[in-house]
């Protein structure tokens, strides 16, 4: 057992269409690794339901989404746990119905591997391709195809070979993932927790051995540290608490604070168990910097020479998760890392058909389970990495401003720069950096709109902001110059009442005394 404690756990998701044998497979894994409790096993043995034709129907161990399906109760991701002497496992068990893209995406978002079931009697189905596509889209590194019910096809090498080559042909569109194929019988246990003699043509490991030995790659981005909380016990100590999203940091390293662009060095890496010389991906730590810089929740500390792109406009893949459709003009809340901003989906470029892999154009508004390539625009610039480089700093969710529901999950493809427009404007930016401008004026750049533009301009001017009015489309360079631009036609709608308080809550105006008001966002 000690060995299993020493290693990091493997988190994997399971997917398959209804009746492919997913419940039986999970039941088999739990049973053969003694991951099921005796009282649960007794309950299964006593159960009147048994569709397996064996002494005991292992699919009942996971209690079956089946029962729930029949009673119309929750169909949702369920998390289960088991361990072997080598490793501990967490299964994100997602229901197989084709409409549950949402649940699959949820389970996949925190998984390192996906076990996708294929029924040998039925061959590769549309759902198989859907499951693989979603797993791939959510950045799962290891795609394992378990070709199940091999006992029912007499362990036919032809059947296995045909399914395998079909999947290999399809796998070209999931570039970069690693693929594994295994012939199994969940019912009898062959090649699940132990190697079977049935398939002579297969010399690989059992599913469990494979899972025990998979190596999970670290995120490919350099040091990234979204600040979660400012720790100030009141004795002058000021630490920035957070979890390292990728890369590593050591005492003395130079870091850059985004979005304001100030630099400093790491003075100390504080933990309850003592200071560390170095901390890496996944560690929850508290950083103390050498300089007194204003830093609050939502800021990101990054490797000074390898910063992520900073932008207000980016392309992303979006999985729509709610019954209510996308309302194109509506401003949603967007959470990325520890930052919350307002955002709009300004373009839907195409819909992805997860079964064929084709990109379709769409007239209808995005709806439940749609996967789309979109362009998102936020009120404030965000530091973003491509999702493929770092899941933690390349992902976001959209929250409906009225219902508070999480309605979409997004994966950043790239930040879009508006280079051309910049040239159109007849001035160049000098040596004064955006960060310095932010320090000076006490706000981030933004485009604003108001029913009372005069009042807004006056209020901001009095506040000391760099504020301008602009007719027509606002050139990107104006914003890059650090200004608050009041536009007639675009930008964040600022209420007439208490505009400054609103802008402060939106994170655009920085609180005058950054360190007196706690770290709520």
């Amino acid at each position, binding site marked *: *057992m000690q060995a*299993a*404690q*020493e290693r*990091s*756990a493997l988190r994997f998701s399971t997917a398959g269409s209804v009746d492919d044998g997913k419940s039986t497979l999970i039941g088999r894994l739990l049973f053969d690794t*003694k991951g099921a*409790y*005796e*009282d649960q096993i007794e309950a299964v043995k006593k159960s009147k339901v048994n569709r397996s034709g064996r002494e005991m129907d292992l699919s009942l161990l996971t*209690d079956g989404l089946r029962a729930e399906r029949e009673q119309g*109760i*929750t169909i*949702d991701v369920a*998390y*289960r*746990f088991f*361990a072997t002497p080598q490793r*501990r496992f*967490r299964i994100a068990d997602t229901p197989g119905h084709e409409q549950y893209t949402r649940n699959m995406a*949820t389970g996949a*978002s*925190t998984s390192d591997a996906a076990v996708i079931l294929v029924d040998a009697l039925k061959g590769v189905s549309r759902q198989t391709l859907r499951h693989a596509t979603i797993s791939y889209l959510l950045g799962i590194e290891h795609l394992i195809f378990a070709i199940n019910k091999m006992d029912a096809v007499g362990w036919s090498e032809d059947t296995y070979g045909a399914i395998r080559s079909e999947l290999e042909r399809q796998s070209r569109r999931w570039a970069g993932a690693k693929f594994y194929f295994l012939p199994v019988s969940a019912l009898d246990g062959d090649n699940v927790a132990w190697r079977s003699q049935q398939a002579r043509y297969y010399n690989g490991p059992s599913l469990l051995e494979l899972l025990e030995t998979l190596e999970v790659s*670290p*995120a*490919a*981005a*350099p040091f990234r540290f979204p600040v979660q909380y400012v*720790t*100030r*016990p009141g004795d002058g100590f000021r630490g920035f*608490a*957070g*979890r390292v999203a990728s*890369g*590593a940091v050591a005492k003395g390293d130079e870091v850059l604070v985004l979005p304001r662009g100030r630099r400093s060095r790491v003075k100390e890496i*504080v933990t309850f*168990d003592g200071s560390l010389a*170095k*901390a*890496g*991906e*996944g560690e*929850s730590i*508290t950083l103390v910097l050498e300089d007194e810089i204003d830093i609050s*929740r939502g800021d990101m500390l990054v490797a000074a020479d*390898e910063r*992520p792109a900073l932008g207000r406009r980016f392309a992303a893949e979006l999985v729509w*998760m709610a019954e209510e459709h996308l309302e194109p003009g509506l401003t949603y809340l967007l*959470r990325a890392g*520890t930052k919350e901003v307002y955002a709009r989906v300004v373009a839907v470029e195409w819909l992805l058909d997860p079964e064929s892999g084709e990109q379709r154009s769409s007239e209808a508004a995005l709806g439940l389970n749609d996967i789309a390539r979109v362009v998102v625009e936020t009120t404030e610039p965000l530091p973003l990495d491509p999702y493929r*480089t770092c899941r933690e700093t390349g*992902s976001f*969710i959209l*929250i409906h401003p009225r219902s*508070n*529901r*999480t309605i979409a999950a997004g994966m950043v493809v790239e930040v879009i720069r508006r280079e051309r427009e910049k040239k159109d404007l007849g001035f160049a930016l000098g040596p004064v950096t955006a960060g310095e401008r932010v320090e000076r004026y006490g706000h981030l750049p933004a485009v604003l709109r108001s029913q009372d533009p005069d009042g807004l301009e006056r209020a901001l001017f009095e506040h000391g902001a760099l504020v301008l009015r602009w007719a027509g489309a606002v050139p990107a360079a104006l914003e890059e110059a650090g200004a608050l631009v009041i536009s007639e036609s675009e930008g964040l709608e600022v209420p007439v009442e208490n505009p400054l308080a609103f802008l402060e809550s939106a994170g655009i105006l920085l609180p005058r005394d950054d360190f007196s008001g706690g*770290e709520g*966002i």
Partner: protein
Amino acid sequence: MTATLPAQASRTLTHLDHLEAEAIQILREVAANFARPIILYSVGKDSSVLVHLARKAFYPAKFPFPLVHVDTTYEYPELIEFRDWFVKEIGAELIVHVNEAAIAEGANPYSLGTAKCCGLLRTQALVGGLQKLKVDAALGGARRDEERSRAKERVFSFRNKFGHWDPKDQRPELWSLYNPKVDPGEHMRVFPLSNWTEFDIWHYIEREKIPVVPLYFAKEREVYVRGGTLIPVQSNVRALPGEKPELRRCRMRSLGCTPCSGAIESDADTIPKIIDELFSFRRSERENRVIDHDQDGSMELKKREGYF
């Protein structure tokens, strides 16, 4: 962008390190996103671990949550004694909440049945307490591996104005992006130990030397033997007709009220022995809690009503 591979981290994170880092991250999210967060402190082993993690998360500052204990008045004396000692030891703020109205009306498991009694003294007391304190986030030590209906529970689990959980309407939860939005009157239950198992809890208690209530360790205790369950003799536990106290070496695996939670026969008087025992004795830990299986699917039912 030219991404170089990250330099080698200082140490390889073990499974427990990961769980710890994740829980700390969740605790900090709660502190940053809510106005009146609390820790629901049941005094059990999971609560002890949760409080320990809270101390780590905000070090060198104190954790910004009071501990709220819903006291049914049927608690084991050892538990109350431990609670008061532990809270003082770590310098935390403790708020004890009792459903006074129900107690005044004489609520007890003998006349009401365990389900109803528990509904009044735990579930309703909890919901009432959270409302009275205007809590917008309640941290709890529940784990997904405890019971079937918990396997689907979110880390940030939304409760409506009545404190109810709607399993059909849970917010999708991806990556470590939690949605903390609640309107006035609603609140969030947050479970930083969601991905821990009972083994992890004990391994961590051992590694971190976290103090826990002595009831978890085996010793000779006077009990009533009721079916497969041992009910320790306490002043407020009534003997059934014909029952005589017997002396048995036993321990509690999960703590509940005196009349309703049983001990198991055991020799495990140290943490390593408890861990060994968990291996050989593979029964789910809530089995000895009378309330969980006196109604079919009773846990899901209680949870919808607001039980932890």
